């Protein structure tokens, strides 16, 4: 089984030095691209590889990079931003990639930047990842020192300034347009789309935002080719995926596996199944903002097209497990409180709808629920549906709620009928 993203990493998770990375083939892809490929050829190779964005939405990366208008002299500088904000609850795959092999992130950023003919690159990192900040800062400095970044990259004439931006909290900073506002020193509210950031992003100039795991794939695609990359997957989406499992499983963790590995295999073989005495009840397959799936869906293949057929989303691919000793209503309440607190307040359905949903869930969980409450929650799900808000935070918040109302209906009804939480 091929593990391009993690096979170089040390067992203790300590960062690879520049020398170690180079000895393992690091920066060969950048050399190859600069030496023998045009930016368009890099984009085409990524298109052919079927790499889909690992930030949660699964948008084809080559297509996205290809939307950058052709470079001209007027609309410069052009920007390439690596999204390392990683604040989706239950998700820590990007942290592992940055801490274990920071140069792979840097090389991925450089290749992405070259592909879209960017002049300036940023890695946008959440503040809590202090160790990732230390190792990335060092890796960027080393990359400059070795001529991989800066005025004349590897003597090719291409110039790229790469720097690390350290944020200061808030989930919304990871949303593409919120992130761009944050980089401009504004509140991380989103902007209306269109125009898309490829046309008018940072400071109104052409900008790409790609996830950390996404860009880590680029060096391997360029070095080994799109056909190889498609071949290591078990689905039509290319490559491998960093899957994860957390909750009351025997061995919570992260594993690089072929894209399309079934959910059951991740849960049972890699996470070791449920802790003794506990049963599997449900799962959020890809972070907090995905629909719950139940035991009947355990055989779903974890890729961007298969999970929606089961009624959820692949999201970040890091699954959160609900066991039979944990209250589903309490879990959903926790999720909606998170989303309510993180809402940026820019649009009414989300700003008012999420605290309302959280209050209704508080009441149900605390034994003050009323028979009409489940209808109120269902109405709120409709109010915050996609298309009613500026960004996808609200739609993401609806996913665990609407699916819980279906999957765990009798638990909600029991709380309301008995006026108490049976788990307390």
């Amino acid at each position, binding site marked *: 089984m091929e593990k391009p993203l993690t096979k170089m990493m040390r067992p203790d998770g300590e960062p690879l030095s520049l020398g170690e990375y180079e000895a393992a083939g690091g920066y060969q892809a950048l050399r190859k691209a600069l030496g023998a490929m045009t930016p368009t050829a890099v984009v085409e190779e990524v298109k052919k590889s079927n790499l889909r964005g690992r930030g949660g939405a699964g948008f084809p990366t080559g297509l996205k990079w290809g939307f950058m208008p052709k470079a001209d002299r007027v609309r410069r500088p052009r920007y390439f931003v690596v999204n390392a904000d990683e604040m989706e*609850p239950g*998700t820590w795959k990007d942290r592992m990639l940055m801490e274990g092999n920071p140069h792979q992130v840097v090389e991925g950023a450089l290749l992405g930047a070259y592909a879209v003919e960017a002049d300036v690159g940023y890695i946008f990192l959440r503040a809590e990842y202090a160790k990732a900040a230390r190792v990335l800062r060092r890796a960027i400095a080393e990359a400059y020192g070795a001529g991989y970044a800066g005025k004349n990259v590897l003597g090719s004439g291409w110039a790229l300034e790469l720097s690390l931006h350290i944020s*200061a909290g808030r989930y919304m900073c990871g949303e593409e347009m919120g992130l761009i506002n944050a980089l401009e020193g504004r509140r991380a509210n989103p902007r209306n789309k269109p125009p898309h950031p490829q046309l008018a992003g940072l400071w109104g100039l052409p900008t790409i935002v790609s996830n950390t795991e996404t860009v880590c794939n680029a060096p391997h695609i360029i070095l080994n080719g799109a056909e190889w990359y498609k071949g290591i997957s078990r689905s039509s989406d290319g490559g491998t995926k960093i899957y994860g499992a957390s909750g*009351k499983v025997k061995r919570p963790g992260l594993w690089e596996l072929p894209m399309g590995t079934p959910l059951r295999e991740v849960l049972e073989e890699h996470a070791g199944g449920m802790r003794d005495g506990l049963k599997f009840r449900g799962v959020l397959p890809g972070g907090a903002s995905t629909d719950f799936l139940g035991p009947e869906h355990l055989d779903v293949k974890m890729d961007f097209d298969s999970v929606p057929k089961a009624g959820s989303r692949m999201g970040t691919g890091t699954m959160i497990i609900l066991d039979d000793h944990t209250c589903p209503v309490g879990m959903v309440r*926790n999720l909606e409180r998170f989303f309510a607190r993180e809402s940026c307040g820019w649009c009414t359905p989300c700003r008012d709808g999420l605290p309302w949903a959280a209050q209704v869930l508080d009441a149900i969980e605390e034994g003050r629920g009323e028979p009409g409450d489940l209808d109120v929650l269902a109405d709120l799900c409709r109010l915050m549906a996609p298309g009613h808000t500026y960004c996808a935070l609200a739609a993401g918040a609806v996913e665990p709620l609407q699916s819980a109302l279906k999957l765990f209906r009798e638990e909600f009804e029991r709380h309301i009928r008995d006026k108490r939480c049976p788990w307390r």
Partner: protein
Amino acid sequence: MLTESEKEEIAEEVKRAGHARAACVDALRIVQRRRGWVCDEALREVAALVDMTPAELDSVATFYSLIYRKPVGRHVILLCDSVVCWVMGHETALEHLTRRLGITLGETTADGRFTILPTACLGACDRAPAMMVDEEIHGDLTPEKIDRILEQYR
């Protein structure tokens, strides 16, 4: 009044960023690193250096959960209250911390040693429940482990 070294460091960030306002979060952090938090007077001075009005800068500062506009203790405890930590026992950790320190979320101990704040997922879900003290993440929290951790911070 901002010190000379604060002003110098901020000026460097502004130069590096190209656009002055793009350096505003870095500038606030430069102040906060030395003082623990950002008072009104410092905010007004920083605003001038990053070419923003004080109101504009405050609207950005208050957006972020990790820019403190009120005094905090010498050590800030960020206790994760997101879903995985909740499943794995966040409530027990919270109860123990608040009883042990005699303060609740958002408060500072009388001796100025600790402030406890709730925080979104710290990305330590394989070691939940987790908290961050200053720059260090501590996972697999139990009441006994919390006591040992608190001892490390004076």
